[in-house]
C-alpha cells in the first residue's frame, strides 16, 4: 500500500465512522436536542453548568412518559469556544444528528451558526447569550431565556443609584467605577451600564476593561481605586471576578460591589469565599415574590439532583428546557407529529401570555394542564418568559445581597422602573 493510499484510507475510515455513527443514531426513536455549547477551551464551564440542569428536566419529562412515549436525549455539540468549531458542531447537530431544537449557543458561536440555524429553521432557546448583539439578530426560531445585557445593565445602574433598592443600610452610589472583562459574554454590558448610570444622574468615574485569564489584576484594581469609587460594578466570569475582588481587598478597598446575574449564585460565594463577597450586591431575574420562591425550590431540587449548587446559567437553562419540553409536548399533542417549524410556533404558544391561559411553572404542571385541554403560559425562574418578536424576554430584576454567606433578596426593580 502506498503512503498516499494509507492516508486516503485513514480519511475514508474517519468519514465512515462518522457516517456509521450518524445512521445508527438516526434509527433510534428519541427526540434529540442539541447542546450547542463550549465544553472545552476557555469557556468550557458554560457547557458544564448548563448540561446537568437540562438533564434534570429531561429526566422529569422522560420519567413522566416522555413526549408521546418518546424520550428526550441530548447530543453534545462542543463549540470549543471558537467560531469554526462552533460552526462544525452546529452542522453536525443539525445535519447529522437531526436535532429538533438547540439549547445554546453562546453569543460567540451564534455568529458562526446563525445562517445554519435560520436556513434549517432549527428552534434555539439559548440560556447563555445575553449579549446585545442578539437583541435584533433573528426572528421566528431564535429565543433566549436570558434578558439582554442592555436590560440587566440598566437594572444594575438603577439599583445602585437608588437607596430604596439597596436594602437596609444601603446608600446610593455617587462615584461608581465599572470593570469589565474582555470576553464576548461580558463586553456587551459595558455600554448599557455606563449609559444607564448617566441616565439615572450618576456618571461612571472610570471604565476599566481587562483581559481575562491573567493571574492577577492588581494594577487594574489600583487604577480603579485611584478614582476613589464608592462602588464597583464588576462584569466578568466567576474566576476573574474572584480574582479582582480579592486583589481589591488586598489593596485595602472596602467599598461596595455590584455583580451581574452571572455571579449571583451560591457557586460564586464558594469560589470567591464568603468573607470576601459579604455585602456584595447581585442581580437576579425574577418576576415576583412567587418567582423568588420558585428559585429557592429549584436550588433545593438541583442540589438534591446533582449534589451541587446552582451555577451560572442554571436558572436560565431550567426555563429553556421547560419551554422546549412543553412546546414539544404541545406540538406532539396537536397532531402527533413534531417538526422543527411547528416546534418553533409552539414555543411561542406555550410561553406567550394570553386571556384564559393557565399559568404554569414547571413541565409537570404544564403537562397536566395541556392534558386537561387547557392553553398554557409558562412562567419561569427568570421571569414571565414572554418573548418579543426577536425572541427576547423582558424581566423585572431582583436585587440580592450576600449576607452571612448566602444571597438574600433585598428588593425588586419593577420593569417600569427601568424606563
Amino acid at each position, binding site marked *: 500500500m502506498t503512503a498516499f493510499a494509507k492516508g486516503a484510507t485513514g480519511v475514508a475510515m474517519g468519514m465512515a465512522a462518522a457516517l456509521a455513527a450518524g445512521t445508527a443514531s438516526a434509527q433510534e426513536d428519541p427526540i434529540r436536542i442539541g447542546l450547542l455549547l463550549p*465544553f*472545552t477551551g*476557555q469557556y*468550557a*464551564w458554560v*457547557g*458544564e*453548568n448548563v448540561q446537568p440542569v437540562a438533564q434534570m428536566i429531561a429526566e422529569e419529562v422522560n420519567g413522566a412518559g416522555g413526549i408521546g412515549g418518546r424520550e428526550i436525549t441530548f447530543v453534545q455539540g462542543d463549540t470549543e469556544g471558537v467560531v469554526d468549531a462552533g460552526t462544525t458542531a452546529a452542522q453536525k447537530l443539525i445535519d447529522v444528528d437531526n436535532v429538533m431544537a438547540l439549547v445554546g449557543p453562546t453569543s460567540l458561536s451564534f455568529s458562526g451558526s446563525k445562517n445554519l440555524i435560520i436556513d434549517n429553521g432549527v428552534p434555539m432557546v439559548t440560556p447563555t447569550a445575553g449579549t446585545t448583539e442578539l437583541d435584533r439578530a433573528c426572528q421566528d426560531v431564535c429565543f433566549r431565556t436570558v434578558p439582554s445585557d442592555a436590560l440587566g445593565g440598566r437594572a444594575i445602574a438603577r439599583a445602585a443609584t437608588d437607596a430604596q433598592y439597596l436594602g437596609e443600610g444601603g446608600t446610593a452610589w455617587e462615584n461608581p467605577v465599572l470593570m469589565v472583562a*474582555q470576553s464576548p459574554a461580558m463586553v456587551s454590558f459595558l455600554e448599557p451600564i455606563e449609559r444607564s448610570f448617566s441616565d439615572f444622574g450618576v456618571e461612571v468615574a472610570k471604565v*476599566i*476593561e*481587562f*483581559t481575562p*485569564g*491573567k*493571574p*492577577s489584576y*492588581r*494594577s*487594574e484594581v*489600583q*487604577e480603579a481605586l*485611584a478614582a476613589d469609587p464608592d462602588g464597583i460594578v464588576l462584569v466578568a466570569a*466567576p*474566576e476573574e471576578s*474572584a*480574582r479582582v475582588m*480579592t486583589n481589591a*481587598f*488586598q*489593596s*485595602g478597598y472596602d467599598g461596595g460591589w455590584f455583580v451581574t446575574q452571572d455571579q449571583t449564585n451560591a*457557586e460564586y460565594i*464558594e*469560589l*470567591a*469565599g464568603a*468573607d*470576601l463577597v459579604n455585602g456584595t450586591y447581585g442581580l437576579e431575574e425574577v418576576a415576583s415574590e412567587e418567582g423568588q420562591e420558585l428559585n429557592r425550590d429549584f436550588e433545593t431540587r438541583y442540589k438534591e439532583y446533582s449534589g451541587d449548587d446552582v*451555577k451560572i446559567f442554571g436558572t436560565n437553562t431550567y426555563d429553556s428546557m421547560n419551554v422546549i419540553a412543553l412546546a414539544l409536548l404541545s406540538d406532539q399533542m396537536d397532531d402527533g407529529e413534531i417538526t422543527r417549524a411547528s416546534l418553533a410556533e409552539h414555543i411561542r404558544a406555550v410561553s406567550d401570555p394570553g386571556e384564559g391561559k393557565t399559568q404554569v411553572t414547571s413541565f409537570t404542571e404544564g403537562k397536566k394542564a395541556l392534558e386537561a385541554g387547557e392553553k398554557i403560559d409558562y412562567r419561569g425562574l427568570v421571569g414571565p418568559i414572554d418573548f418579543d418578536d426577536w425572541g427576547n424576554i423582558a424581566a423585572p430584576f431582583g436585587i440580592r445581597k450576600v449576607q452571612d454567606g448566602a444571597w438574600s433578596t433585598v428588593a425588586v426593580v419593577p420593569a417600569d422602573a427601568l424606563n
Partner: protein
Amino acid sequence: MIFIQTLVFGLALGGVIAVSAVGLTLAYGVTRFINFAFGEFLTLGAFFCLMLAGMGLPLVWAGLLAALIVGVLGVLLARAFYDPLMSRGLLPLLVTSVGIAFVVQNLVRMIAGSNPFRFPLPLMRPIDIAGIFVPREQLIILGVALAAMLAVHLLLRFTMLGKKMRAVADDPALARVAGISSRRVLDATWFVSALIGALGGILLAITQITVAPQMGWHFLLVVFAAVLLGGIGSPYGAMIGGLLIGLAMELGATYIAANYSYAFAFVVLIAVLILRPRGLLGGRG
C-alpha cells in the same frame, strides 16, 4: 506612590514567574529543548495540592507532597515520551511536548471538570506600610519564591547532583566521557524541573486565588518570556527574567494599558531579543 505600589505588586508576580521559569530553564539546560508541556506541571501541582488539602492535609504539607508527586510524574512522562526522541532533533521534541500539553490539560478537565476551584488560602488583609499595601499572600509568595530559588542555587552550586547537571548542560559529550551517566542526570533534571514547576503552580494558585485546568497553559507564555529574557538555559537569568517580566507586566498595565499587559511583556521580550539574541545572561542558543 502608585509607582512604588506597582513595584511591590510586580515583584510578587515576578516571583511566581521566576520560580516557574527556573524549572523550565533547568530542563532546557540539560535536554536542549523547550518543554511546551511545562505549563501542565504547574496545573498538576496546583490540582494535587488542592486535592491533598481537601483530604485534610495541612496546606504546607499538601504543597510539598504535590510537588513531589508531580516531580515523579515528570520523570515518567519524560521517559515515556521524550527520551525515545532525544536523538531526533528539535522539532519532534517540541511537537511531542505540545501533544503532551493537550493530553494532560484535557485529562485534568476530564477528571476535575471545567469549573474553577478556590485555592484554600484564608483571606488576609494587607499590611499597610506608609500607605503602600503589601498583601500578606505576596509575602508568602515572595518568601517561597526566594526559598525555591535559593534551594536551586544551593543544589547547583553545592551538591554533586547539581554539579553533574551543570556539567551535562555545559557539554553533554564531555560529561559522558567523564563517566557521568546522562540517563540518571536526565531523570534527576526532569524530577527537579517538574517539582519546581509544581511549586510555581501552587504559587500561581495563591496569586490568582483559583485553580483551573487551563491555568498552566495560559501562564506558559509569560514563563517563556522570562526564560528567553534571561537567556535560555540559565537559571539565574530565568530568575532575573521572571522578576523583570512581572514588573513589566504590572508597570505596563498601570502606565500603558491594562488590557495590553500580556502584549507588553512580549514586546519587551522581542525587543530585548532583537538587541541581545541570546537573552540577558544566555551564552548559547
